[in-house]
Structure formats: structure tokens, C-alpha cells
């Protein structure tokens, strides 16, 4: 801080001159600490010495008005830093901005709404179970569940809106993979129950050939024309069938004669015996 009294020196002043300036009593500042000797620097690299000696000279205590201001400012800075640090540590939400708080509040509100809805539903179920003597409601719920699972597993007949795809195959070009493609496309489009001729198609159904070029599904031989009946949203499924490069178009290119019909009510009547899984066990979690 003495550079304001001494003329600004170049980037690498002569260290000797530096020392001379150091030793001189400061005429302008007139401080009491001039008696303090300058630190004897080990004769090291000149540049290193310059940097450190400057710092040291600046660090010498002097009682000037400017130094006092600077000290006050430094004290304020320290005070403010500590205040801010403590504030940040102690408060969680207080120093968030208004919009952040609003967003936070909104999220919490939505969550609480969702949770209270769920609580309502559970309370209703609980009171139903209690008032209806327990067994009846439980039985009803279990039956409902059984029906849903039965349709999925193919153990129950199903009816509802859907589509019927008839694939005429005069040239014997339809391969198992084509039928599989059609079934996959139907599943993608949300088909809930699928039947191929007299075979119910479920999650573990497979397609192959049985002797020559006859198609086989789940071990049952299937002959042309192939009729795929699927229950689901008719519009979605027929759109899925008709996409460019999709099932219908590729079948037509191969020489088969596919036709897709939507219906407000189709029946999936073929059944399939429920099989017990050999390896998978229900886990209790």
C-alpha cells in the first residue's frame, strides 16, 4: 500500500532500489511503525523477492486515514461473509426466491392432493371390506381379478369391440414369422385378447411349421385362410395394420390376400388351459 507514495515501478524493478525505498522513512504517511525493520529476504530469485517484498511492504501497519477506511471495509466484509454463511446454514426456505417458493408450494400441493385421493380410495375400500362382512367384498374383488387375469391368460372367453383379419393364402407364402409380426403389431396397438383360427394367442404362444409348409400355432396345425380375431380399440388396431410397410402391405406384396374388418363386437372363444410355470414361483414381496 505504499505504492501510492512511491512512483509506480515497472513490472520488475531493481530489487536494490526497492530496498532503498523500503528503508526510507515515509515522508507523506508519517506513521509510527517505521522503526520496524524490513524483513531480510534470503537472496533468492530476484522476481520472487520483488513479489514478496511488495506484499510485505504493503502489509506493514500504518495509521493513515485510507488504511482506516480499508480496515473498516475489510471488517464489514468479514462480518457480511459470516452473516451470510450462518444465514445460509440456518435457513432452509427463507432465502429462496418468490417464484421458487411458488413452484415448491405448487408441487407440494399437487402431491398432497394425489395422496389425499389415494387415502380416500383406500379408506373406501377399507370401509367396504368392513361393512360387507369382509368376505363378500373380498370375494368380489378376487373374482374381478380372476376374470381380468383369465382373459389375459386365455382361460376365459372374451367379447368386445375389435377387428378381424382374414388372410387368404392361395400361393402358400405366409410364413410363421408373418403371423407373428401381425400378432406383435396387434399387441403394440393394445389388443387385449387374440385368437388365430381356433387357437388362443397369449403371452407364451409360439408359431412354427408342422410338416411341409403348414402353419402351426402352439402345437396346433392351422390352415389357410388364417383368421386373426383381436379385441381392443378397433380404430387403433386397424390403423396399425394399415401403416405403410406394415403387416397388410407386406402380406400383399408376398401374394397373400389380407383383409381387415372392424366390428363393434367380436368374440374370442378359443380357450387355453392354464399352465403351471415350472421355474417361476410367486415371490412374496
Amino acid at each position, binding site marked *: 500500500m505504499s505504492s501510492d507514495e512511491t512512483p509506480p515501478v515497472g513490472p520488475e524493478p531493481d530489487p536494490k532500489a526497492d530496498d532503498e525505498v523500503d528503508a526510507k522513512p515515509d515522508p507523506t504517511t508519517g506513521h509510527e511503525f517505521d522503526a520496524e525493520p524490513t524483513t531480510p529476504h534470503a537472496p533468492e530469485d530476484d522476481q520472487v523477492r520483488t513479489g514478496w517484498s511488495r506484499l510485505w511492504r504493503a502489509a506493514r501497519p500504518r495509521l493513515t486515514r485510507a488504511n482506516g477506511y480499508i480496515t473498516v471495509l475489510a471488517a464489514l466484509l*468479514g462480518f457480511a461473509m459470516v452473516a451470510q454463511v450462518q*444465514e445460509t446454514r440456518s435457513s432452509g426456505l427463507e*432465502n429462496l*426466491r418468490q417464484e421458487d417458493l411458488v413452484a415448491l408450494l405448487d408441487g407440494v400441493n399437487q402431491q398432497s392432493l394425489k395422496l389425499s385421493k389415494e387415502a380416500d380410495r383406500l379408506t373406501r375400500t377399507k370401509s367396504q371390506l368392513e361393512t360387507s362382512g369382509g368376505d363378500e367384498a373380498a370375494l368380489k374383488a378376487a373374482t374381478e381379478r380372476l376374470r381380468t387375469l383369465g382373459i389375459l391368460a386365455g382361460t376365459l372367453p372374451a367379447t368386445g369391440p375389435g377387428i378381424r383379419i382374414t388372410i387368404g393364402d392361395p400361393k402358400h407364402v405366409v410364413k410363421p414369422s408373418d403371423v407373428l409380426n401381425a400378432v406383435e403389431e396387434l399387441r403394440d396397438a393394445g389388443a387385449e385378447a387374440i385368437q388365430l383360427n381356433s387357437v388362443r394367442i397369449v403371452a407364451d404362444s409360439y408359431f412354427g411349421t408342422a410338416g411341409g409348409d403348414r402353419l402351426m400355432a402352439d402345437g396346433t396345425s392351422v390352415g389357410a385362410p388364417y383368421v386373426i380375431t383381436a379385441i381392443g380399440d378397433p380404430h387403433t388396431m386397424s390403423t396399425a395394420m394399415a401403416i405403410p410397410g406394415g403387416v397388410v402391405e407386406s402380406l400383399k406384396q408376398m401374394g397373400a390376400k389380407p383383409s381387415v374388418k372392424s366390428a363393434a363386437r367380436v368374440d374370442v372363444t378359443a380357450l387355453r388351459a392354464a399352465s403351471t410355470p415350472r421355474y417361476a414361483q410367486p415371490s412374496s414381496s
Partner: protein
Amino acid sequence: MIPAIGLVVGLVVGIVLHPDVPLSLQPYLPIAVIAALDAVFGAVRAVLDGIFDDKVFVVSFLSNVVVAALIVYLGDQLGVGSQLSTGVVVVLGVRIFSNVAAIRRHLFHA
């Protein structure tokens, strides 16, 4: 030396008094502290460059703090307070880094 003691005194006083930051100051204090730190590092660099000036330091310290707080205030009024304070912190951080680099070069030549 005396300013350093002042800094320590300020820290100790803050720790002892455990002040509450007034609500109206809360968005601006962190930015102001960063701005003041920028001024301090700039001052140390100026000392090492041999161009330090007391008056310049005092003025730059105060104007840094005031301008930083003003920018954040303006940002809050315009609805971009958080973005603008991030911007201010980035700019001041870059400046602090370059100042520290200059100080390091002066002291260690590395």
C-alpha cells in the same frame, strides 16, 4: 496488516453476534460479498503490480458492492433475478480467478 486484522475482527464479531440478515437484504448480500471479494483480490493484485491506490480501492470496493446489488435488484424487478445473479456470480468468479492467477504468478512465478 491492519486490514487483515480488520477482516479477522469482522469474522469474529459475526461469529459471536450471530446476526440475522434483514429480509430485504437477503437476495443481495451474497452477491455483495462476492463483489467485495473481487475488489479485495483486485487490490492484492494491484499491490503486487505496484499500482495500488487507497482511494481507488475504497471506491472500487463500494461501487462493486453497490453495482452488484443494483443489478440483482433490477433483475428481481424484471423477473430474471435468479438468472442475473447467476450471471453476476459467474462474471465475478472469472475475475477473481484471473486476479488470483496474476497474484500467483507474482508470488510464485508459476
